[in-house]
């Protein structure tokens, strides 16, 4: 494998000069060196094929509930939809996915305050919550609550401790309120705990324990805690073999909760969660406001729900049914008078709107406040759809992004990138790709002209395994993405990262190879991909610390 070393390159729009550097700028050096392999990687034969005998998984570390998971879990556990965890310190953003980060004093204080608020609301209907409204059955109520919250049967010692907490309350309600506070602040609730078998040797590879595996499964497929059936399957040992695990996986994928679980995935992967916060230049785009942004996000959600329901990866890039209401109709170039308040399905021509990329929500997100943004549109394709990375701009380089100027199209203003030697290294990978979206303006509406000149949406894809070549426009690109092996593998990587809440490593090579093969065999069916991730060693096994 070749390992491209981009020694120096640029990031955003730039006309560059390196201050204080007299020599030539070393741009785009492609070094032919063997890729170093990380710890615990499976061996390879002389031809570079993986030898997947034995088990290979990397050392991983403890995960905590993300903010979304915290809120979803409390909603399942207590029926409390208030979603206060969004005020917690932000989760860490790792390659686009969210992972709960450092535990700080601030976080612990907020967790306490939130547990108190949840508990106060929950005890308003204890009967509903624990099936028991009086002191005589407190024990049963506590057991049920703790078992659900900890995603495994609560131990006798834990129950005794919670009983002591209960007794500190003045009456049944006050006691249960304190119990709920204690449960919600317990590490058994807050963490995805994956206990190691007693006496297991360091670096040995062991199956993820049944309740921990059920936990992985539930948060991957549903985005919340296991239900009673999944806990029972774990308890009965039905997750211990692959067949039983897949039977449970199929049950869960059939369940309506799977669609909402998948939302957590694509909202992070495709940045859909950011659309509702997009702000535009008020003087240039008075038609844009917070309600528009929110409805565009809902419209994207509906489209992506359809992709999940339809199952075919290609739909993601080429689906032509989008959801429109009167408020967002203008951004789809439609007459608002033809629509009501509710989102309704509308078929589009492929040349105007196809798939997630040319949805006005996505295009507006990938724009400046006052103009289209070819650089970030291309960067999105490179990073999210192709799993490529571009280097940051080098130090001590004066970088200037071109401003909108009268009489020049966006394309013309960015032309200098392809002329300056300091820019060309990275920008040959960005500008020609980003230009194919030039028909979409800063708010994602389709346009035929830019500053009075007919839009030229031709472009070029390069530095890919199987997509290189000239492009006539966005539709030309989107029709080809679903068939690209590089895109298919990237989608599989993204699902893998989301499922395991970590980046893939060299030690995962065999798992990934198996996932890619199953995904291909299925004809790139999204459910088959989810199943393949569950079936992988990386999902089912852990390395003892």
């Amino acid at each position, binding site marked *: 494998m070749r390992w*491209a070393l*981009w020694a120096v*390159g640029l990031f*955003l729009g730039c006309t560059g000069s390196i*201050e204080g550097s007299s020599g030539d700028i070393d741009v785009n050096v492609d070094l032919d060196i063997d890729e170093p392999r990380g710890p615990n990687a499976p061996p390879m034969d002389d031809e570079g094929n993986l030898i997947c005998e034995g088990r290979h998984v990397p050392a991983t*570390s*403890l995960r905590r509930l993300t903010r979304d998971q915290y809120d979803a879990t409390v909603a399942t556990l207590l029926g409390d939809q208030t979603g206060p965890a969004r*005020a917690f*310190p*932000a*989760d*860490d*953003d*790792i*390659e686009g996915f969210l992972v709960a980060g*450092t*535990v*700080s*004093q*601030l976080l*612990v204080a*907020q967790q*306490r*305050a*939130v547990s*108190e*608020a949840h508990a*106060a609301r929950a005890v308003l209907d204890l009967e509903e919550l624990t099936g028991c409204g009086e002191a005589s059955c407190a024990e049963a109520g506590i057991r049920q609550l703790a078992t659900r919250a900890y995603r495994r049967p609560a131990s006798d*010692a*834990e129950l005794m*401790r*919670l009983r002591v*907490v209960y007794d*500190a*309350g003045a009456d049944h309600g006050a006691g249960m309120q*304190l119990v709920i506070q*204690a449960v919600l*602040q*317990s*590490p*058994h609730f807050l*963490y995805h*705990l994956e*206990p190691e078998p*007693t006496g297991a040797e360091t670096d040995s590879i062991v199956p993820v324990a049944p309740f921990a595996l059920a936990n992985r499964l539930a948060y991957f497929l549903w985005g919340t805690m296991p239900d009673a059936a999944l806990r029972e399957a774990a308890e009965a040992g039905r997750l211990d073999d692959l067949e039983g695990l897949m039977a449970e996986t199929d049950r869960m994928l059939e369940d309506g909760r799977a669609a909402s679980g998948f939302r957590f995935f694509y909202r992070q992967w495709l940045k859909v969660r950011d659309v509702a916060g997009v702000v535009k230049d008020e003087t240039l785009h008075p038609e844009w406001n917070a309600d528009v942004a929110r409805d565009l996000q809902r419209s994207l959600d509906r489209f992506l729900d359809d992709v999940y329901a339809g199952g075919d990866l290609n739909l993601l890039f080429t689906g032509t049914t989008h959801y429109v209401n009167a408020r967002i109709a203008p951004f789809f170039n439609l007459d608002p008078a033809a629509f009501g308040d509710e989102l309704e399905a509308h078929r589009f021509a492929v040349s105007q709107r196809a798939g997630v990329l040319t949805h006005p929500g996505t295009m507006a997100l990938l724009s400046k406040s006052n103009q289209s943004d070819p650089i970030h549109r291309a960067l999105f394709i490179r990073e999210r759809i192709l799993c490529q*990375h*571009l*280097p*940051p*701009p080098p*130090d*001590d*380089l*004066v*970088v*200037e*992004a071109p401003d909108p100027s009268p009489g020049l199209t966006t394309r013309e203003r960015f032309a200098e990138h392809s002329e300056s030697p300091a820019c060309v290294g990275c920008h040959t990978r960005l500008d020609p790709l980003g230009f194919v979206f030039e028909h979409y303006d800063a708010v994602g509406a389709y346009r035929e002209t830019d500053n009075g000149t007919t839009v030229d949406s031709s472009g070029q894809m390069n530095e890919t395994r199987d997509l290189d070549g000239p492009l006539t426009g966005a539709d030309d690109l989107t029709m080809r993405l679903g068939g690209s092996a590089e895109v298919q593998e990237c989608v599989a990587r993204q699902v893998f990262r989301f499922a395991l809440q970590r*980046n893939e490593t060299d030690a995962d090579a065999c798992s990934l190879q198996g996932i890619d093969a199953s995904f291909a065999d299925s004809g790139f069916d999204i459910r088959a991909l989810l199943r393949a991730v569950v079936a992988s060693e990386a999902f089912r096994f852990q390395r*003892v*610390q």
Partner: protein
Amino acid sequence: MGKRDGSGPDSGRDDLTSGRVHPGFMRNRLRPMGRRGLLTAFGASALALPFLHRLGGKAQEGAPKRLLVVFSPNGTIPGEWRPDGGETDFRFRRILAPLEDFRDYVTVLGDIDMRTRRSGPGDGHQKGMGEMLTGVDLLPGDTGGGCNSCAPVSWAGGISIDQHIANHISTDVPFRSLELGAHTGGSNIWTRMAYRGASEPLPPEDNPFAAFDRVFGEFDVDATAAALRREEQRSVLDSVMADFDDLDSQMGREDRQRLAMHADIVRDLERRLEMSGGSGFGASCRVPDFGDEFNHRDQARYPEVLDLQADLVTAAFACDQTRVASIQWNRSVGNMSFPWIGVNDRHHDLSHKGDGEAEHQESLVKINTWYAERFADLMRKMQAIEEPGGTLLDNTLILWCNELGKGNNHTANDIPFVLGGRAGGAIRSGRWLRYDRPHNDLLLTIAHAFGVEDEQFGDPRYNEGLLPGLLA
């Protein structure tokens, strides 16, 4: 209800269960919290006695030293930032001109370079932000910001100076430190400057109202309610701590360490419970009035958020809730506009403009001058608080830092460090000092000003020793 004069209607019990302070409850600006007030608040409660004893003890010792770190992003315009003239007869140029009223309390530090940027992974902004207060390289890792072959990068590899000093001077007060901010964004290398240790960034609280509730929300709950609450909370936290203890035998070595860190913080919470009812330092403790809550994410209200955070830190210091704090104004690569001073372009975009673009350079001068005014506001607020030995400003050191020297070339040289206050007389202020030294030396010298007399701070490769002439 032993509430002090002027506080709102009794809503104590609701507040306990909601975890929030009722609007209008105890947010009265500049209400005196004198010794008499404290006695009223606590009555003769036995639980309060150790605390009163603590107060009495401290009053005899004089006021403690405090450290505040503030940050503004994207570099400065050095030509308008560096003063003219000599060490003591200097004249501020435009950016620092708002500090003129406090020139005896200001120390401007020229030619301090962030030499840690010469090694380790990460881009200029990432390194600038993560290394600014830690003085060590960023760690290799898997956080974004790299490229296919750039070394992947992660958090900074060591403790930040504020936390290091907090470990020495802020352990027997309710909060070891307070991290506050405004528009600091999500959690990544560009948005975190305070580190509890390697790979342990501390998140700032962007919401001044939530921060207020955290610091002062239980400040003067009545004695009976407070005692009941302590009792209940103790039982809850005991159970939580026992859960942490149980896990010790089931988890791998590294995971145990992570859990132990979490458990330590819960233990801190328990400890604070024992101190609850509020601390207070002499007659100067004032609980600020935050008025009606508004959306702190609304960019148009950024100036108000900064003002509230400044009030909060001043009060938290005056009431001895903590002795170390930071306020992070925006974030590295922050891209806000400043329409209230006529700057509608965005900060990071502007910071990339060439030196020859006069109009954009002027906008950057305006932004940095506006931040200097905020720095002056902090000094003004602190100077208004009288304490043994002068004012709160005399007893505090404010460090103003930036992740870059200058935005359009991302330079690590001549970072615009400014000090305000005197750290209880430890800093010889009122001067314009030029060095040519690594910024680790500045961090080390600040530690010495707080009596933390280490040999070095951060990466030893970038330590040359104490900055001469800065300490009294």
